[in-house]
């Protein structure tokens, strides 16, 4: 049952992206930016946690979860270390994902070459 909700909500979120692509012809960079911002805003108003408790990976795997972690990290770090946290918290919380994406991309770019089209 849990998995059904993950599938449905994750699918709907992704379909929302596709709707944006079809109706406005915006590029993938703007889609990603828009969804990160949605995540930041959801977390800023404390709406992300209740959705996440219910939708699990359905909302955490889409890049909305990345935006929410950024905001959540910043807010959490403000609580523990004051104003400094506003600057350190966001990247601290998302460091794993960013470093993995950069690290794997670099590693694979050394190993593989692009297929000539």
């Amino acid at each position, binding site marked *: 049952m849990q998995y059904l909700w993950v599938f449905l909500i*994750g699918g709907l979120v992704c379909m929302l992206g*596709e709707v944006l692509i079809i109706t406005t012809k915006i590029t993938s960079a703007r889609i990603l930016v828009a969804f990160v911002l949605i995540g930041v805003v959801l977390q800023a108003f404390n709406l992300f946690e209740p959705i996440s408790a219910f939708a699990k990976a359905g909302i955490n*795997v*889409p890049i909305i979860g990345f935006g929410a972690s950024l905001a959540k990290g910043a807010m959490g770090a403000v609580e523990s270390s004051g104003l400094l946290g506003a600057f350190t918290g966001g990247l601290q919380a998302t460091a794993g*994902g960013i470093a993995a994406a950069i690290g794997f991309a670099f590693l694979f770019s050394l190993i593989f070459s692009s297929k000539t089209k």
Partner: protein
Amino acid sequence: MKNQQLNEKYNAYVEARIPKTKPWPSLFNSFWVGGVICLIGQGINDLILYLFPSMAQQSAWAWTLIIIIGIASFLTAIGVYDKIGKFAGGGSIVPITGFSNSIASPAIEFKHEGIIYGTCVKMFTIAGPVIVVGVVASVVVGIIYYVIGLF
């Protein structure tokens, strides 16, 4: 005036030339591919928590994301992710695997321009704006949260 006519002609030409994606199949494909990617994430997350029951939920999520980012980078490197992307559109862009694909794809494609100016610079053509906007927004949210906390 003449320019405007040319522009209109050009726009009509472009409109006629761009490949038409039929909305309904592409919506359906983005839905189920996106859903499946999220399911895979949930499966990995549950497996991690099953194997390491003492791990905190937050660390399990971090590992989950690192693992699916790794898988997506690899699929990008062997050219599979781009095929999924053509088929699924938003279904492959919106999940964090799309973010990872947006880094790995140019990194590999521009390798021939050198490691620094090819791989390292081009890596961030799409991910750069995402990280910049995300970080700026999170700093703003953090500062507002701090100011609200003062009262």
